């Protein structure tokens, strides 16, 4: 369970997040929505430890991880997949995937996890020894999610995975994520600008505006209530 309690983050004089609170239950997908600059990426970067908050806390299964280094938080099972350049382009597909679970020092478990990832994403298997920069956008996204798989992360922080993806590919990936959530008890925080597709897979949703939470609740509810949708999501 991921708990964010009264998080306030500032960059110098600029307030990025004001007292944001959120609880993400295990085996669920929570969508974080909002316009550009609303603070979605800041939220995720604070959870994964890249940014220090001014006040507030982040708890993973009751443990306070607010001030841990990013690599330590990753080793606790939190996988943050950043926007854009998350793939290590110079390294091969296989090397990228292996990186996910290296710190576990469990070679046989690693091999199994790698095999699973290739099974789940066949296009990666056929490009195993190619450098990652030769992958298409959709394949890169598969790579970073596959990497989180290999890391056997329990919490997945996805920052705009739909960016630059064809709709069909996006649907496929979302379906895979939903499967992983059900099969492995994965917990997902999904940042999206494409609210519609996010809400179609999410269980819960939260809308950020200028660093503050404006709406929070069931995803289905947000999708079906026209008033809320129009006001906060523009459709």
């Amino acid at each position, binding site marked *: 369970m991921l708990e964010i309690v009264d998080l306030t983050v500032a960059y110098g004089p600029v307030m990025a997040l004001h007292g944001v609170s959120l609880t993400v239950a295990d085996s669920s997908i929570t969508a974080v929505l909002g316009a550009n600059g609303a603070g979605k990426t*800041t939220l995720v970067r604070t959870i994964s430890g890249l940014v220090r908050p001014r006040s507030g806390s982040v708890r993973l299964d009751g443990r306070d991880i607010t001030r841990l280094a990013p690599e330590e938080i990753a080793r606790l099972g939190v996988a943050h997949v950043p926007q854009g350049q998350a793939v290590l382009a110079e390294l091969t597909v296989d090397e990228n995937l292996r990186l996910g679970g290296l710190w576990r020092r469990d070679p046989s478990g690693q091999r199994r996890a790698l095999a699973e990832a290739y099974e789940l994403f066949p296009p990666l298997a056929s490009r195993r020894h190619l450098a990652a920069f030769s992958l298409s956008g959709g394949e890169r996204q598969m790579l970073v999610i596959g990497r989180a798989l290999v890391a056997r992360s329990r919490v997945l922080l996805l920052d705009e995975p739909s960016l630059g993806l064809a709709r069909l590919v996006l649907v496929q990936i979302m379906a895979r994520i939903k499967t992983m959530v059900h099969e492995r008890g994965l917990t997902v925080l999904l940042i999206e600008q494409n609210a519609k597709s996010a809400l179609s897979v999410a269980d819960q949703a939260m809308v950020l505006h200028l660093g503050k939470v404006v709406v929070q609740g069931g995803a289905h509810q947000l999708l079906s209530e026209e008033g809320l949708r129009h006001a906060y999501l523009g459709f």
Partner: protein
Amino acid sequence: MVTANLRLGRLVRPTLNRHLLLALGAAVVLVAISAQIGAYDDYNLTAVAIFAVAAAGLTLLTGLNGQLSLGHGALMAVGAYTASLLLKDHQLPVIVVLLLAVLTTGIVGIVFGYAAARLRGPYLAGATLTLAVALPQLATRYKSIFGGDAGLSVPPSAPPAWLGADFPPERWLAWIALAAAVVTMVLLANLLHSSVGRSFIAVRDNEVAAALAGIDVARTQVLAFVISASCAGLAGALFGYWSGVTAPAGFGLGLSLQLVTAIVIGGLGSLAGAVWGSIVLVFVPTLTSGMASSLNVPSSVANNLPLAIYGAILVIAMLAAPHGIQGALTRLLALARTRWGHSSASGKKGVMDWDDPAPNP
């Protein structure tokens, strides 16, 4: 063109007046001081002025334009050798020698500046490093012209008759050096506040934006380099007069690094800081040698202590106080202002604002 000049004129003149006044005041004070102190102190005063001229040029290049040069010691050598060669067989007035040294080094600056105009960061640093190590080798190679390792001697400049027969030559040299320093400072200060100075800063901060704003980036880089090289040449020629001999050993990598130390101590981009840094450069060796002899420290330690101290200063400065003395003073001033409730703003910041983190979106 005409409108640009008019605008420039309106901007420059009041600043120019202010600078000239300051310069005049400084000159009077310095002349008065030099009249009171003895030959040894005049000698040191000259040294401070010499380093200040070189450091001012370098701080302009590195602080304002963002180009780090590790080769300004070699450029000083160009000025020094020009002076030596001119004076080898002829008697020339000091001002002529100095101007020709400036010209020669300026030309070298143009050549190197154009070659290096597209280089940034470590590439430029490396190219100037190679210059610093390579140029002294030319002196050893062409022994017949440059006198090889022993170098060339520089005859001292005799004080003019109208100052009186008893006028000490050290004080005369101090006056020359101080005059050169004052003139350099005024010219550079005006440059800083002109549109040229602003174009330097614009290119340092964001080349792409500067180019889009119509600034010729390559020309700006070359101009900054040439100006700083000319300052180094002037300082080098004065150095020749001051030390009496021009030899390659005196202009090695160590000298270039000492200049870097001076501008770091003073704060990059600050002309006043160039003076602070030069004072430190001149007085640390005297302090350490005094300390060493009274503590009976072996010569291998004593001779190397200044350089070890400079090295330590650079490291510690970068770790603790990247803005140098001038920056520290500016901050103290700002702190005082806020403490006494004058303004809530953070006060004037150093030329390079190294503290502000770039916010991650």
